């Protein structure tokens, strides 16, 4: 099918921080998703290296690399692995969170699509390190193509003796199960994911205990994001020091950044942590012709908005937190001046209401009220007191539920109000469609005839 999107514009800006294709280095090879293709480009060379190390040495290497979880929470990966009790007689599990569903996050799906074996190799190495002999890859259900790709990669790895019993003669045994979800954003929350995998409704558990102590089937379990695991083989192969030489001390390494929205050239850009947002935007070709940046979100819809006042902010956990937002998944969504911030926030909150699992009252009821209030702004039917009331409802949700979904629902509005208060005030008088004609924000020019 032809792509009608006007995306491939020439790049106009220079940039100081070079792109660093590491995971993506061979993504253009049409057979990279096969075992043969992956091997031809150096795949499965880290695995024998890892199996020659002690599990503790691998954990130490990953600790030294400074790798932090790429699913949004940014917890130090090696430290998480280190929390798994060793020398106990209980089974340990590795569970890969491949439930990428956060609005704006779109890096794990293309990774699994183009290069599923990098994930599989990372799974084997990680399982060996944490002494798990059973690993699960929980892929969201709405991407059957990706489910097939990952299943196929796992099957090929079994056939080649890279998964199964006595892997490469090391005496290490591992089974890997690819598990498909069935449409529930909440299952990206690690304890909800574990419940789902146990055959329960996908509702979060109270923490502590944390999964490292009591996870799948109440056994010690590491839950890691796809991108996190996929970088593990490169760290084993090239060394912790090399990986940590990129980025900053607190935000080390190389990262998959996904740029989306009103940019000339949306896509996946692999770059060092700490690259300024303006540089990423430059690589993405800048804003579409004739338009200016209005607001952007560094990583998903669960983080506060930033504006053109934050263009030069380095993409690190600490710098983005310092600017009042969160790094999240590191997948910036970028919007220009044709966009109604009221409409954007309203849709995100509808999403959270739809995805609230219903377990905790503040989230279940609070998202209902937030949707109602935001709709009033969108339709020009709000009253002046709704501005504060919406803040108040958010505060009643924040920090009052088992998991972060409710917090996420309460997050976009306060920052949107802070930077664009007048637009919410306009929402007491005029419909969003009048204020921001939707056709101007679309990326196609055709009239909807």
């Amino acid at each position: 099918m032809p792509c009608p999107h006007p995306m491939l514009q020439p790049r106009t800006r220079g940039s100081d921080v070079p792109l660093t294709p590491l995971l993506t280095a061979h993504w253009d090879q049409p057979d990279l998703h096969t075992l043969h293709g992956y091997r031809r480009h150096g795949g499965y060379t880290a695995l024998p290296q890892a199996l020659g190390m002690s599990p503790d040495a691998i954990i130490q290497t990953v600790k030294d690399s400074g790798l932090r979880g790429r699913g949004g929470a940014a917890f130090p990966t090696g430290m998480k692995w280190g929390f798994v009790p060793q020398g106990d007689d209980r089974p340990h599990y590795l569970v890969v969170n491949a439930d990428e569903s956060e609005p704006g996050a779109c890096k794990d799906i293309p990774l699994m699509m183009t290069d599923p074996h990098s994930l599989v190799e990372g799974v084997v190495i990680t399982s060996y390190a944490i002494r798990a002999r059973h690993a699960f890859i929980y892929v969201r259900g709405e991407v059957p193509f990706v489910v097939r790709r990952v299943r196929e990669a796992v099957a090929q790895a079994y056939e080649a003796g890279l998964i199964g019993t006595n892997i490469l003669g090391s005496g290490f045994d591992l089974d890997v199960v690819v598990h498909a979800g069935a449409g529930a954003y909440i299952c990206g929350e690690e304890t909800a994911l574990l419940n789902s995998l146990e055959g329960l409704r996908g509702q979060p558990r109270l923490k502590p205990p944390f999964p490292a102590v009591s996870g799948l089937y109440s056994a010690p379990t590491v839950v890691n994001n796809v991108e996190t695991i996929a970088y593990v083989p490169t760290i084993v192969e090239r060394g912790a020091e090399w990986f940590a030489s990129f980025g900053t001390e607190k935000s080390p390494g190389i990262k998959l950044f996904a740029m989306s929205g009103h940019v000339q050239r949306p896509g996946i850009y692999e770059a060092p942590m700490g690259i300024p947002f303006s540089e990423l935007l430059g690589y993405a070709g800048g804003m579409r012709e004739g338009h200016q940046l209005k607001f952007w979100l560094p990583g998903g819809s669960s983080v506060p908005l930033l504006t053109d006042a934050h263009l030069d902010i380095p993409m690190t956990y600490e710098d983005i937190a310092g600017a009042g937002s969160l790094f999240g998944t590191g997948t910036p969504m970028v919007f220009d001046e044709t966009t109604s911030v009221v409409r954007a926030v309203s849709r995100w909150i509808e999403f959270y209401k739809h995805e609230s699992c219903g377990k905790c009252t503040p989230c279940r009821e609070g998202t209902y009220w937030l949707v109602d209030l935001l709709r009033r702004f969108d339709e020009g039917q709000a009253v002046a007191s709704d501005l504060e009331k919406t803040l108040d409802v958010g505060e009643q949700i924040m920090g009052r539920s088992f998991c972060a979904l409710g917090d996420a629902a309460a997050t976009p509005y306060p920052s949107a109000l802070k930077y664009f208060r007048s637009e919410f005030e306009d929402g007491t008088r005029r419909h969003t469609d009048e204020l921001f004609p939707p056709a101007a924000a679309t990326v196609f020019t055709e009239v909807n005839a």
Partner: protein
Amino acid sequence: MTTTDDTRAQMRQIVARYPQPRSAVMPLLHLTQSRDGSVTPEAIDEVAELLGMSRAEVTGVASFYTMYLRKPGGRFRVGVCINSLCAILGGDEIWESLVDYVGIDNHQTTDDGLISLERIECQAACTHAPVMTLNWEFLDNQTPASAREVVDKVRAGEPVASTRGPRVVPEIAAVGRSLAGVDDALDDSDNGLDPLTLAGLELARELGHALPASDAATADEGV
């Protein structure tokens, strides 16, 4: 529908993948739905019995996840992402156009049982907005006109190719089997590469940006 020996064997294979049988409830529901068109009371009995769960427990799972249906939908399910970014970049226009063109609204199915329309949430493809799905296979960078073309093809019985996925989008039942982990034979041999996924890599090559070598890996790292 009655369970054939084949289905029963597939169900047992699925259960055997997991350390505890109960973990198989989701793939089994995907499988029975692909056979029956929805999650039927009979299927709930069947899954409950096989896994040693109560009917209420299986029903609890089936009713929690949006992909399990209480009534059969169309053989081709058309989804339009209406989450903020896709909606703003054109998803709303695409949705309105399809509602007019197909003549049904959200969660409805045409009288001939061919097409269902669904407003869907983020598909993790924001780089490719506005995004649609046909039986959950990606149709990236859509417009109202291209969306209507998809409907035309489905109505005419012509194959629709996913932009990143199978060359021929299968009927919904085949998708259920894929999710259950049986019958994965679809032709998707090299389809997954596209200019947006490769944007960074191609730009790095164009600009001559090379990955600094490590001591351990020096030889083959030209980009």
